[in-house]
């Protein structure tokens, strides 16, 4: 029904081969769905930070996250303490 072979599907699944856009659209239709595609304004700020993170060891990435999380929690706590009716 999909007019393809198991080995071709296996290559898609392993990431060895990217199926073309038309193939993806056809497979999505065969599964009973329609494919919606849209455009968003690109924002690389998160990716820039992520690349910086990747220069750290996994432990340092988590340590920085924990520092950020605890700082945010402290700020929220102080805001909650000062926001009276």
């Amino acid at each position, binding site marked *: 029904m999909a007019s393809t072979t198991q080995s071709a599907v296996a290559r898609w699944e392993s*990431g060895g081969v990217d199926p073309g856009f038309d193939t993806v659209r056809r497979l999505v239709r065969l599964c009973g769905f329609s494919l919606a595609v849209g455009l*968003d304004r690109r*924002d690389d700020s*998160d*990716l820039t*930070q*992520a*690349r*910086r*993170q*990747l220069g750290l*060891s*996994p*432990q340092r*990435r*988590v340590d920085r*996250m*924990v520092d*950020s*999380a*605890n700082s*945010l*929690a402290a700020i929220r*706590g102080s805001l909650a303490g000062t926001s009276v009716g």
Partner: protein
Amino acid sequence: MADGGGAQAFDPGQILRVLVTHRVNFVLIGGMAAVLYGSPLPTLDVDITPERQRDNLARLSNALTELDARLRADGIDQPLPFGHDADSLADGGVWNLSTRYGDLDISMTPSGTSGFADLRRDARAVELYGLSIRVISLADVIRSKEAAGRDKDRRVLPVLRELLAERGHDRGGRDRW
């Protein structure tokens, strides 16, 4: 801090240490897994999917007792007492808990997945806090966040997809932390 309240500092190392000490078989999922793959967005909890075998859930129950785990819910300031054993843990799909070291979310079957065995297949080991922790693959982090579709998931998905694409272009990247 023994009250399990919400004001304690988040210390994921202690949560992981207790789980490992009790020999709980689990994979790390969610926001912390995303951070390990480079996400710059912090998370305020540890998310795990445990193996659903009864003896493993019994060990998890023992770990939760040591962590003084309590139930947390939106709109309730103080976490609620939480009685648990292997059977009751198995009966629940998701447990949102507050522990003496911060929040711990347990999801038996994260959105878009079929649970531990599904996620364990491509999980990778990483050393954190001197412990060997199994972390689900970046592709599986994306899969579960796409299926969950919450605002916080949608917020992080673009950068995770970019990171996955970059790892894919670098053939050695799949095995690199």
